[in-house]
């Protein structure tokens, strides 16, 4: 019977991690529904970007207050996880504070003391985050797309963190041996007196309960990620690594179009030529994107990485002037549609069955797409280098090249370019007149 807790612990650990791995595989499969794009070049530069932007949080601190608070939570999260390692070993072996024996009281106390300070700081930062989201009037948290689940999701994450930090401190406060040793109980020594009137058995029960809920809570939180915007804690790393390295103004040149244009401009090409004998007749490639599978895997990774902070939207000139466009909503819609497609595949034994829906119109409207000025403010703002603009452009390409559905004025502009080489209706022969006016 004495091994029952170890066994329960091992089972919980296997279930927690196993379920998480299963879901990560689903995410990976969904991302791979996207078109291929080569992002394996310039490895040193990519690595540097990842270290600077994801690990180093360099873009977070552009907004000093939220950036500073985020760094506390981030550093706390990463460092306190060392303690989780001890908890896992203790849980599996049935030991208690196993690192204490290895490290000695001095070093162990220093470590736990650091964790306790961080836990207290994280708790405070998370309270401020909660107030910012729920009490302060911060516009980017109040947008239309943040109603309902996205708002609850944000708060649930904060509650998780509050509870986990509290349990960690209570667990230390209710460990009499740890308190008596007096090394590392920097914060918990102030919590311990709360339990002064309690019997030793009750204190021990509270300690054990806190310990168990703490570790089970971590496993639940790990699995919550899949359903939440909080995936960024993992995906920020690959996302910054695979991000675009070209100048932001450089949009891709569609290769499928290049081939057609070359053929059109080739004086020797026979427009009536039948395909060569034996040549396979290929379906012409779709131009632009109307659904998630037309996007690249990097754009889909972007969608899973987005944590809906809304910095993009708060910098978007269209959104600032009351237009429907919100770059954050573009990313949220892309993920929602991708997950819908994923569930469709799961339900249909691994193949996607047409559901009569697509990203265009069912999620993102042409009105949103046409409001974009392509100014790159959203791309510049994103703390993890997400590129909403590239999705907007790919969808405009579909609207124009597949559906001829550009706004009338843009059709006129394009007709002018075709006829007289300028967006306005001027005679090409008058192009140098400016030199002799005045």
């Amino acid at each position: 019977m004495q091994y029952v807790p170890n066994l329960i612990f091992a089972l919980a650990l296997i279930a927690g991690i196993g379920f998480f791995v299963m879901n990560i595989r689903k995410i990976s499969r969904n991302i791979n529904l996207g078109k291929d794009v080569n992002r394996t070049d310039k490895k040193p530069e990519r690595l540097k970007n990842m270290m600077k932007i994801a690990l180093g949080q360099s873009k977070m601190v552009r907004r000093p207050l939220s950036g500073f608070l985020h760094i506390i939570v981030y550093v706390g999260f990463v460092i306190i996880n060392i303690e989780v390692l001890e908890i896992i070993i203790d849980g599996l072996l049935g030991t208690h504070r196993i690192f204490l024996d290895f490290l000695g009281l001095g070093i162990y106390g220093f470590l736990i003391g650091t964790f306790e300070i961080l836990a207290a700081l994280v708790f405070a930062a998370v309270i401020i985050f909660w107030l910012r989201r729920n009490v302060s009037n911060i516009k980017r948290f109040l947008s239309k797309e943040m109603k309902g689940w996205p708002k609850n999701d944000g708060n649930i994450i904060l509650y998780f963190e509050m509870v986990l930090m509290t349990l960690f401190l209570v667990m230390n406060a209710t460990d009499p041996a740890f308190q008596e040793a007096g090394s590392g109980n920097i914060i918990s020594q102030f919590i311990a007196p709360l339990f002064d009137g309690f019997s030793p058995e009750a204190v021990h029960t509270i300690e054990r309960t806190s310990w168990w809920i703490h570790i089970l809570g971590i496993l639940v939180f790990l699995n919550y990620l899949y359903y939440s915007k909080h995936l960024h804690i993992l995906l920020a790393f690959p996302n910054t690594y695979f991000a675009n390295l070209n100048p932001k103004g450089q949009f891709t040149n569609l290769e499928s179009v290049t081939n057609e244009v070359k053929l059109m401009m080739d004086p020797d090409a026979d427009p009536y030529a039948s395909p060569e004998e034996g040549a396979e007749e290929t379906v012409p490639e779709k131009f632009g994107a109307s659904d998630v599978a037309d996007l690249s895997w990097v754009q889909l990774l972007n969608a899973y990485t987005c944590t809906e902070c809304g910095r993009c939207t708060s910098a978007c000139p269209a959104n600032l002037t009351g237009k429907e466009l919100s770059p954050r909503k573009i990313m949220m819609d892309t993920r929602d549609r991708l997950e819908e497609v994923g569930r469709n595949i799961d339900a249909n034994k691994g193949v996607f069955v047409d559901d009569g829906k697509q990203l265009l119109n069912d999620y993102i409207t042409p009105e949103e797409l046409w409001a974009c000025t392509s100014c790159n403010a959203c791309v510049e703002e994103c703390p993890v280098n997400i590129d909403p603009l590239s999705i907007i452009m790919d969808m405009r390409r579909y609207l124009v090249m597949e559906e001829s559905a550009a706004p009338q004025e843009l059709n006129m502009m394009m007709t002018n370019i075709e006829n007289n080489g300028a967006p306005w209706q001027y005679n090409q022969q008058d192009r140098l007149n400016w030199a002799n006016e005045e």
Partner: protein
Amino acid sequence: MNVPTMADMMAQGKQPEVLFWVGAAGSYDDRAKKISRAFVKILHQANVDFAVLGTEESSTGDAAKRAGNEFLFQMQAMMNIEVLNGYEVKKIVTCDPHSFNTLKNEYPSLGGKYEVYHHTQFIQNLIKEGRLTINDTTLKGKRVTFHDPCYLGRANEVYESPRDLIKRLGVNLTEMKRNKSTALCCGAGGAQMFKDAEKGDKEINILRTEDALETSPQIIATGCPYCNTMMTDGIKFKEKEAEVVVKDIAELIAEANNL
């Protein structure tokens, strides 16, 4: 005004130092034509051997591309590349950040590889090489703010060249609260110039003009013909034409040097 064309040059067996890509706005838009002329005056003063394509120049296709028409863009690009490569052009300067971006970044993979400069970079180089000096007394003490064009700034990270030139004019440069990488768009990019805005509660150029007016400027400087139009319209809307003018940096330099 003497503006040689590549065809003239070729007929004389000459190859100019640089091609001035005028762009559609610089060729046809009344306000932008003044910028083209100001820049040519500067080129003349610095004795730069330049030429334009004239009637052989055609839209870069930038507006078509941002509107989603990749076909039209690539047709334009390949036509232009044929002309440019035919004249063996190596170096291009333009006053239009959109042409600058497209020629510099999007033409190479279609076969058009050139050294491309925005006119503020080009003028800065002329000064560095000692071929041009800017008179810092004419505009001395004027209050100036600079509006970053998106396709020069964020798109290509050229923030310092225009500012360096403005400082050389001896003026007081005051930054707007949103500047450089956080600058707000004027509202013209992404082919918006050629259509009405979607429904909203404000025009983007008005919001940006308000940013500029907060600095109480006498001059709003910019480096893009489209930004120029948007900011000029904004100033008119705010009925501030009497106090504030919108000028391209090339115009300010031409004015400072009495060209």
